[in-house]
């Protein structure tokens, strides 16, 4: 009965495909893309005509001096800037081909799809467990066993499980800074996002904690697109596939990390990564 076996394999593979959390975009299609995107606060144009694509399963590093618009760009990607009363924008940001600033876009769902980790660890003043379960809970997950699974798998992915598995009920604020930052990463992973937005996640951390986060990212890029804003050019060189250099709200240069660091095309990029300014 070879036909039956074939059918079974096909059915099984179809079932597995259907269970995949997000349909993989076509190869070569960007996961997210900014097109002539400008961000304006009052009359100040903080981002000017940004054209930048983020591809599936890559780590894109954004480097640049302070006030170059890196964080603003990140906060535009999940529309956190909407909360500022004086924010307006022009141009588009596409996620899987759809403008995230479309009227019909559900901002809550959008923010779950693009998870954000902030520069300073931001544990809520609750237990480790409640911190991780918070996202799934507010999106309607009530099942105790499902929450337990999500908490465990998120902590495993963020390389924190082994350190905290025996004290999930303890306050998250008791953790060290590096652990807190991995907790924040796990909290985002618990929502099963598609893109991870990391805003200088290692700026306050020691080298060992930084290495742990970078290890986690290297593993996570198999499943997610990762945007890593960093002040640390060495970290960008170590922990990214492509690098974009921002300056005064513009993208000066974007290319593979190897190219940007070994053969930059613009004088200003050379100046920045060799430490002449910034």
């Amino acid at each position: 009965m070879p036909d039956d076996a074939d059918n079974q394999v096909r059915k099984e593979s179809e079932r597995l495909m259907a269970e995949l959390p997000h349909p993989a975009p076509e190869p070569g299609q960007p996961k997210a893309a900014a097109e002539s995107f400008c961000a304006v606060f009052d009359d100040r144009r903080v981002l000017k005509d940004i054209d930048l694509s983020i591809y599936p399963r890559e780590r894109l590093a954004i480097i640049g001096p302070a006030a170059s618009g890196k964080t603003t760009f990140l906060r535009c990607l999940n529309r956190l800037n909407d909360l500022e009363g004086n924010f307006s924008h022009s141009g588009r940001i596409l996620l899987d081909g759809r403008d995230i600033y479309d009227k019909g876009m559900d901002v809550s769902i959008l923010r779950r799809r693009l998870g954000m980790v902030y520069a300073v660890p931001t544990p809520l003043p609750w237990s480790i467990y409640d911190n991780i379960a918070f996202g799934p809970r507010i999106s309607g997950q009530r099942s105790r066993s499902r929450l337990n699974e999500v908490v465990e798998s998120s902590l495993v992915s963020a390389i924190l499980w082994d350190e905290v598995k025996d004290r999930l009920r303890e306050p998250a604020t008791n953790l060290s800074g590096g652990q807190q930052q991995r907790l924040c990463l796990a909290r985002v992973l618990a929502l099963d996002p598609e893109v991870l937005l990391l805003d200088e996640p290692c700026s306050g951390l020691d080298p060992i904690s930084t290495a742990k986060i970078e290890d986690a990212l290297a593993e996570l890029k198999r499943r997610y697109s990762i945007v890593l804003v960093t002040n640390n050019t060495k970290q960008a060189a170590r922990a990214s596939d492509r690098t974009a250099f921002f300056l005064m709200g513009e993208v000066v240069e974007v290319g593979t990390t190897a190219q940007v660091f070994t053969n930059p095309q613009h004088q200003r990029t050379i100046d920045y990564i060799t430490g002449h300014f910034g």
Partner: protein
Amino acid sequence: MIIRPVTTHRIAVAALWTVTVLTIAVLLFIIAFILAQGAPHLSVEFFTSSPRSMGREGGVLPMIVGTLFVTGLAVAIAAPVGIGTAVYLTEYTRESRLTALIRFGADCLAGIPSIIFGLFGSVFFVITLGMGLSVLSGALTLAIMVLPTIIRTSEEAIRAVPRVYRDVSYGLGGTRWQMVTRVVLRSALPGIATGVVLSIGRSISETAALMLTAGSALGMPRSLLDSARTLSVHFYILSREGLSMPKAYASASVLIVAVLLINLLAYWSMRRFVAKVT
């Protein structure tokens, strides 16, 4: 003449120590004085029987019940309204002339003598709305009176919640309502509870406003529209009319012990709650 730093330090410590001891001494003296005058006249009968011959004989059971009714109802009305107003002012509007006006109004309301509230209550609730001298009129009047305290303390507590908590909640796809109820109020609860406890204290001790709105009937209040005499009103009438100083001090002792117990209970349950959620 130059005073040495060590000397100024010693003078400061001595001065601070003195004023602290003075404050506590005055408080303890008042409590001790009332209890010394009142405690000998306390008995089981005092707690479980009604007053006879205008309060010269008998107990204060109707007054205890009346106090619980009026205070409980007042706070049950004022707390949701006040906390709701504070949430609206802090989380749902931007600073504007309107919010400034509401805040200014609340501050003015807080400074008005209670007898004015009593006058308003007697005209509006008792006469115009036809509620008569009753538990309901008294409770509504007290609710208006303590509203500013609850609004301002809740507002301060909500403002003290770190801004990043809000970003975290939004970033995980939370709606504004989820952010308010699950993050902000949860963190602000101890501060809000302090405001509510203060209001309970103020309601229990209020006399003037209640004489004009809840009345001073000696009988047991059996419905919200019955007149009720609270302990403080009872104390006032017993001493003012020279009916029975021993019974007045006994009533005052009950009042003081009740306030102490309520404060202890509030702080204890707050500490337990905070320990549970953090």
